[in-house]
């Protein structure tokens, strides 16, 4: 990776540094609530102290890199497919959380992802996704006897 010739301050890089600093703070705060059982050593606090300290140093390191514009160049970004995929995942999570079972959610996720990758056949893909969901359900639940969250559709099998 060669750094870009014009050295500009990288705002995204600074945001990363701030996030790391916040994480370091959260780990430290969480550590301060732990109780030490043995009077001799720090027990459960040792590792959080190391992690928090390390994250603080790395926040500084990342900030220096951002100020010097050392981050690799990034390509332009298309947000629409990202929102589609995350939306599909959100629907799946909501359907499972509210007892809708996973089959409808899985079919939705399949159709949303394939739309995100440029296909324009939502209904067809929804049906394909549903078929795959049934297949996966039979494989996991019946053959491997793993439990999958069931909704009204799954109880038909």
């Amino acid at each position, binding site marked *: 990776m060669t750094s870009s010739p014009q050295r500009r301050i990288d705002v995204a890089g600074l945001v990363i540094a701030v996030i790391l600093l916040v994480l370091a703070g959260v780990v430290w705060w969480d550590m301060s609530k732990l109780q030490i059982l043995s009077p001799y050593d720090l027990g459960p606090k040792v590792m959080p102290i190391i992690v928090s300290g390390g994250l603080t140093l790395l926040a500084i390191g990342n900030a220096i890199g951002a100020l010097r514009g050392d981050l690799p160049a990034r390509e332009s*970004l298309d947000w629409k*497919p*990202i929102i589609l*995929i995350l939306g599909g*995942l959100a629907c799946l999570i909501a359907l499972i959380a509210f007892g809708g079972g996973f089959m409808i959610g899985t079919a939705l*996720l399949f159709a949303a992802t394939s739309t995100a990758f440029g296909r324009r056949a939502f209904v067809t893909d929804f049906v394909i996704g549903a078929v795959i969901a049934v297949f996966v359900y039979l494989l996991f639940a019946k053959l*491997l006897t793993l439990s999958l969250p069931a909704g009204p559709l799954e109880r038909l099998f």
Partner: protein
Amino acid sequence: MEAFTSLAGGLAVAIQPANLLFALIGVLLGTAVGVLPGIGPALTVALLLPITFKLDPAGSIIMFAGIYYGGMYGGSTTAILINTPGESASMATALEGNLMAKAGRGGPALATSAIGSFVAGTIATLGLTLLAPYLVEIAVSFGPEDYFALMVVAFVTVSATFGDSPVRGLTSLFIGLLLGLVGIDILSGQSRLSFGVPELYDNIEVTTLAVGLFAVGEALYVASRRHVHEEKLEAVRGSLWMTKEDWKRSWKPWLRGTMFGFPIGALPAGGAEIPTFLSYATERRLTKHPEDFGRGAIEGVAGPEAANNASAAGTLVPLLTLGLPTSATAAMLLAGFQQYGLNPGPLLFADQPNLVWGLIASLFIANGMLLVLNLPLVGLWVRLLMIPQPWLYAGILVFATMGTIAANPSPVELVMLTVFGILGFLMRRFDFPIAPVVVGLILGPIAESQLRRALSISLGDPMTLLQSPISATLLAIALLALVLPFFLKGLGRFKAVED
């Protein structure tokens, strides 16, 4: 030779019909999933982990050996036929391999990579067989402080020494270490970083993290830049077989690649990237056909591919003898062991010799199966490559979410998967390496328990880490490995040979 007696015992386990069947299923599944573009060996293992939940430990781990080697083979097929290496270790193979495929010599490129992988895998697994008993003997004398120091070495080499940027690599590692803190601390019974969420009390699942980072993250990343990059599949034209000339040009690179791959993989140094690029650079310098490089030289496929496979077998040395995973794939294998409450290390060799040696024997068998199956089945694998990209990634996400929810039936687990997916996307976008996060999550808690054991023996005196000569030496090596890249800015720049 004691090692061969043990291996013979393992072979008796591995050739039981049921275990042969598991190895075969593993090899086929591993190749089929590994051949899919964007899926490297680590994700292959992570996606297939739920399938092995209900098997007995021996069968499941033998199946894993097959998946591991199968995923490696599959990955190189993708690298050659589409120029999208599923992981950095296949990058060197993709350079010349894809050019060969473009020039209509895809068949010989696949053949030299398959046979080279077999040769390298067999020699390296033999190396594992011979080396493991010695390392186990040394490891038995290690105290907790020595183990901790060894893990520090692994942390540093995996994240800082060989990457593009030590700061970004260490950042990835510490995110992994942070995730490793989440959950109830076994020794004191207190919860850390759980914020009252019950699902967080039993620690973060390595599979959820790996599938989120690799599968969901990759899908988001590829989708977001589809308008910039288009993948093109090269058809396999002409003969599959290598000519006499091809053989003559391949066998030395195979052996040299193995010599690079195995030692670097066996040291807790992590990453098959360095040996593959070393091998590529060496073959380029030694070749009698320098005019072919840049237009599809068979040496440039044979060497790196052998190095890649030898290093994959090499990483099993620290994994099995010391319980030290030095790559994302090794971390997934360790997770596979842990799901049965098995902890790789010297004790496992003493307690469960049949299991460990059965696994090692299965590696030989899986390697042979791949050689026999892969070339005749190459047409089938190519057809898998032709799955349209929208359906491919949609299918990957469906399988990823189903596997996650089957392992832990709770919507919270899917929320975590999604969050890790976003993390994986951002890390790809800002060029942070992914493997250190996975290694940090799985190795962090192990390192912590060793450190705390050492500290409680020394009544809290951290100087105990420097008083043991082994530990002091290892920590000095770790410090050197940490500082070196800042001075030698060119060390991680083997990628420059690409240009």
